[in-house]
């Protein structure tokens, strides 16, 4: 039965991907991509990767889709029919695919317990020693935050980079004579994005149902975010998923009640502060362990007992991840949403 389900999902995946390639309406393509991500999340669950499934659903089907839709609102949904030559790209991608197919014939059988991956001493230690060394039931969290904590620090930095990158790109002033305008504006960089009162920006004041529903919903979204953040040691979840959910709560608020109100609640400057703070918190844990005489991110030294130190370290770095991810998602959303408002104002 499980095999049939997975074959069915896989074929659905391929059908979805082909449809994405085929459709000309970019809204449709975006929604199909979101569906593909969601099917992928289901497949990840069947492959026992619950944490990954959670993230794929939140990011691939959630945040990415919001970003695409936000962009499409600014650039329009129609794809012009392409006159580009398609023979060479097709040949190239098929050739690359051919190399992969060629490789698969000597790959270990899927699901077999004797593959190098399963018998590796890495796997052995993560599965058998980490319950004693780190004592966190969710091994993904243990590996993510401790054994390979530096990768996760890098990942936090990547999301920080994306946050400041989007703000840098989208806060540039519109139009071709950018230099002149930019200098005038340079003293108050985001003046157009912050406290400007404009009642027209309040999204749909008459939609009573969304207002009421979201007012009821948002506290639970945020609560769930906290749960995912702090329950990541025991079940699927952790800083990244929590950050996305938390940001989703604010984005929902912003979509229903308007960007201005959200910005009063959480000004851009504060979001920027949190964006940096999360990275500094994560790195700070590493620096403290260095000051205690260990290596960077060696949580064993944080407290008297190594296991307690690991717990504290993981808690703090996950918090750092959660804060930076929330702030980065909000920064990116502010960037895109703010862009559409400035465009509306300039009458474009």
């Amino acid at each position: 039965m499980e095999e049939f389900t997975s074959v069915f999902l896989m074929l659905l995946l391929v059908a979805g991907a082909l449809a994405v390639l085929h459709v000309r309406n970019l809204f449709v393509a975006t929604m199909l991509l979101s569906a593909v991500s969601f099917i992928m999340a289901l497949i990840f669950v069947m492959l026992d990767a619950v944490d990954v499934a959670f993230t794929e659903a939140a990011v691939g089907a959630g945040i990415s889709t919001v970003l695409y839709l936000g962009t499409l609102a600014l650039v329009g949904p129609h794809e012009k029919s392409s006159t580009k030559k398609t023979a060479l790209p097709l040949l190239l991608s098929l050739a690359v695919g051919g190399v992969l197919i060629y490789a698969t014939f000597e790959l270990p059988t899927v699901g077999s317990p004797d593959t190098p991956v399963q018998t590796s001493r890495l796997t052995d230690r993560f599965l058998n020693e980490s319950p004693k060394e780190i004592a966190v039931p969710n091994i993904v969290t243990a590996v993510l935050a401790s054994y390979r904590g530096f990768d996760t620090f890098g990942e936090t930095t990547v999301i920080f980079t994306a946050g400041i990158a989007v703000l840098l790109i989208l806060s540039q002033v519109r139009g071709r004579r950018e230099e002149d305008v930019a200098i005038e504006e340079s003293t108050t960089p985001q003046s157009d994005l912050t406290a400007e009162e404009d009642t027209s920006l309040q999204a749909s004041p008459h939609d009573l149902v969304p207002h009421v529903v979201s007012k009821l919903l948002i506290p639970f979204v945020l609560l769930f975010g906290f749960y995912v953040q702090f329950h990541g040691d025991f079940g699927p979840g952790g800083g990244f998923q929590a950050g996305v959910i938390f940001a989703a709560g604010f984005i929902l608020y912003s979509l229903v009640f308007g960007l201005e109100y959200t910005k009063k609640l959480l000004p851009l400057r504060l979001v920027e502060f949190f964006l940096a703070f999360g990275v500094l918190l994560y790195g700070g844990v590493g620096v403290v362990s260095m000051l205690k005489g260990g290596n960077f991110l060696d949580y064993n030294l944080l407290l008297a007992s190594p296991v307690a130190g690991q717990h504290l370290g993981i808690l703090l770095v996950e918090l750092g991840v959660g804060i930076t991810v929330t702030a980065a998602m909000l920064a990116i959303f502010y960037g895109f949403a703010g862009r559409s408002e400035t465009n509306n104002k300039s009458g474009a």
Partner: protein
Amino acid sequence: MSSLFTQAPILAIILPLLSAPICALFRGATFPWALTTIVSALSFSFSLDLLFHVAEYGAISYEIGGWAPPWGIEYIADPLSAFVMMVISGISTGVLLYARESILKEVPASRLGFFFAAYLLALAGMMGITITGDAFNIFVFLEITSLSSYVLISMGAGTDRRALTAAFQYLIVGTIGATFILIGVGLLYVMTGTLNIADIASQFDTIADTRPIRAAVGFLMVGFAIKLAMFPFHIWLPNAYTYAPNIVTAFFAGTATKVSVYLMIRFIYSMFGADFSFGELPLTTILMPLAVVAFLSMSVVAIFQDNLKRLLAFSSVAQLGYMILGIALASETGLTASILHIFNHAIVKTGLFLTVGAMFYVTGSTYLKDLAGIGQRMPITTFGFVLGGLALIGVPLTPGFISKWYLVQGVLERGDAIGYGLAIAMLISSLFAVIYIWRIVELAYFKPSPEGAPTGEAPLTLIIPCWIFIFGSFYFGIETSMSVGFAETAAKFLMGAVK
């Protein structure tokens, strides 16, 4: 050794990494720039420390999180990685000395906090790629570098909107390259069950003769080739270098592609082994023709450019061809030449881009038509450019000559007709370089300035760093024992590692 030194491998990376968020919190032009410069200089001093230490006592391993490899992530400072780190952080520091005046012309002061944060992230990312001993960690730091590069390049949009399309094109191509590397790492992992480079290398002989490994080598090589703008994957580079802000171009010209060259050397020699790469796989027959076509065709293309930055960008693709040729020779001399050329070309090309940046500072353009007669208008800067150009061509007493000398020795060591053919091809390519540099000299000194063209030298804060690089170019062309010594140690280390 002091305890600070035992932490040097990680400090060289986390100092810039953790300074980036601090930088991002500040507005105004001065503080972010000062912080970035100081941090970069500190990183440079740690790299130098490491370099001198490993050259004498051998490689250092640093276990991040206190987890021993292969379970945790390991940093390895060895003669090659320490050398490349020294080049990256050194170039970065030199460029930053110049950056303050130059960048204000192109990016509004209010964005400089974020701008320098992105700069620090690019620096930390490249340093992290170089020193890490973990295959997946390479991917993570590669993406930090890539994302910050995309945004740094797009900051040229204040001058020319084409910076945006250049950044987007680089984003698409770069992401494909990074994903290829991710697949390559995945194939290695599925066959070995480990991610540590040394650990994979120790098991490599037993699994080398399998299809997934051959595919992994292919994917990794194509991924690196895309990232290092190796011909024919170079399409993104000329646009990116032309439209990026000047200091970004100068910084990347000396570092970004070099890191990918380093990765290629690292994987071929430390992981796959020279015997496997050049014996069982036909890497020489693939890389060598591409390298030759790169330095011949791109030098010709460079001659016909109408934008000085673009001209130098195509020259960079050509120079990368020399480095690839050195790798493909599969000999100690060839490898020494490649590693040496990483250093020499970085100094020369960064110096050239900085002088071009000074011309832009005064004239507001890098198009050749606007630079006519620049020799009379900006004599000191132009003279610097000409000297840098000589170093690029590789006249004796310049570093370009030294690395080409080693490369010619390397190709002649083959002792066959192909070797002589390669030497002749290198000579022809150098003649093309003479032509494109001469074109600029002619334009600068023998053409009248356009009417009403801005005249006057760039401020000293720009000229002095330019001349540091130009002076360095000649210093390392005459006093070669240090650079050649380190490159030879690194090459011996790599050839010794594969036995």
